[in-house]
């Protein structure tokens, strides 16, 4: 027997939800309609709909002048290498630390635990010198190696996960004579797939969004990523709201599409990523 809440309670719920949805959608709506307007139209028509939904001038303008194509290319290279590296190195560390006992284990575990305490923003003054000494300044390698070396989210997630994979699996494979590498590759790695999915999503969002690292280490025009390209574009074009709106919209699209298709994984991913 289900007791229905009184009507006014349900009504109040929906009103608050609609109000929140309005707050969320209003800024997005305003740049969405703005992106299709001409300059004069933008300043005259306020929040109205654009006259011509097929006016793509702003999009092509920001894409070319703002070098967004280059930005997407660079961030894609960084993303692919970072994600592959994170998965391979993360699962390897988890296998070594999660399945074996050895002298330095406590030290290395402690090292990764400590690293979660050190926020990346604070140490950049000194990381800067390391990057320069390694000759990585103005090099795509700088953000990639920083994402691989300074962010330890993958280690915590994989270590958490590997504990739930029964050790019997390893042992019976050993009885059959499988090598340890084979156990890693054909048992542990595939069974870590759910953690890998979580990781892919969280890392993609954080790398795609990162402004600070590329801004600091790759000021060269040829190495702009999406975030620094947009930042550089607004400098001299601050008044061109319609063109800027188009740029924002282009940049929004990839993650929105990923989100809409992978909602469920994202929801469970952020939950496990945050609480662990």
């Amino acid at each position, binding site marked *: 027997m289900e*007791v229905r809440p009184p009507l006014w309670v349900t009504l109040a719920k929906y009103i608050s939800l609609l109000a929140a949805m309005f707050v969320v959608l209003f*800024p997005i709506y305003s740049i969405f309609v*703005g992106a299709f307007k001409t300059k004069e139209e933008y300043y005259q028509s306020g929040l109205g709909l654009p006259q011509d939904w097929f006016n793509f001038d702003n999009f092509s303008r920001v894409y070319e002048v703002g070098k967004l194509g280059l930005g997407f290319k660079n961030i894609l290279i960084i993303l692919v290498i970072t994600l592959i590296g994170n998965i391979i190195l993360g699962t390897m560390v988890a296998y070594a630390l999660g399945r074996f006992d050895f002298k330095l284990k406590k030290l290395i575990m402690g*090292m990764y635990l400590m690293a979660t*305490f050190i926020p990346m923003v*604070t140490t950049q003054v000194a990381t800067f010198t390391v990057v320069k000494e390694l000759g990585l300044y103005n090099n795509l390698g700088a953000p990639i190696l920083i994402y691989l070396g300074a962010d330890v989210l993958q280690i915590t997630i994989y270590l958490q996960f590997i504990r739930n994979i029964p050790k019997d699996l390893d042992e019976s494979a050993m009885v059959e004579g499988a090598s340890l590498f084979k156990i890693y590759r054909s048992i542990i790695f595939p069974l870590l797939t759910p953690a890998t999915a979580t990781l892919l999503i969280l890392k993609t969002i954080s790398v795609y969004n990162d402004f600070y690292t590329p801004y600091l280490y790759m000021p060269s025009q040829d190495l702009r990523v999406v975030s620094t390209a947009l930042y550089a574009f607004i400098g001299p074009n601050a008044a061109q709201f319609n063109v800027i709106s188009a740029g924002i919209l282009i*940049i929004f699209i990839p993650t929105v599409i990923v989100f809409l298709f992978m909602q469920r994984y994202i929801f469970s991913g952020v939950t496990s990523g945050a609480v662990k």
Partner: protein
Amino acid sequence: MFNLSYKTQRILILFGFLLIPVLLSLTFTYIPAASLLYFSFTDWTGLGWEMNWVGLDNYKEIFSRPEIFGVFKNNAYYFVGGLIQTAISLYFAVILTNRLKGRNFFRVMLFLPYVLHSVAVVIMFRNVYHAEYGSLNIFLDAVGLNSWQQEWLGNPSLVNISLAFISMWKFMGLNMVIFIGAMQSIPSDLYEAAKIDGANSWQSFRFITLPSINGVVQLMLIMSLAGSLEAFDTPYIMMKGANDTSTFVIQTVEMAFKFQKAGLASAMAVVLLIMVCILIGIQKLIFKEEK
């Protein structure tokens, strides 16, 4: 690896699997942290390698120049924003955990800002907040609330609130989804039992929901406190720290890369690092006790 004994394999695996990750972690986390500490005791400019040991001078400077520590008042806006955001997200999490038509649709909608690109979001809000052509003032005009129109970024007493709002806008949905995740793991028979005992929905929230997700709420609060201490992107991209919107991290970055006072900047970074570590330490302690 053919016909190697498991003992040899073990050594190979441990060495091969850990060497590169450990080297990476040393290079990009521990060497920077250690050199940061060293630089903080010097008068290093950040250019070249010349530096003199100055002892605690940089730390003394931080605590004796009120404008350096004073920017934390701007960080406070982000913290208050974080508190409000936690409360709002808790409210929506409760609503959207219970049975409700369109529940999933609303979850997706409210979470949407979190997946949007962060720099693009800040710049989007520049268009929203613009005093003359910004959509917010146009909207207020359209609904007859002209008197509410403001210079959202120009008015010094409003600008930090406008900036803090952007973070709330972006992260409310994330907090909400994390709370929903925590609430879904509360066994539903607890609520049924409470209902039989005559508890109303506020009482079930107060005595069942809240105690069950206590740990997550604390985690979110500490995280938003740590996040507010590290606030950088939003005020930097929007204002470059102008109009009294500078935060501690903006100041550190400018001290190092603009004013060439890398020694002082390192000391500031160490101070921030210690503050954040204390916070996270407290959180880990609380969290551990409850588990």
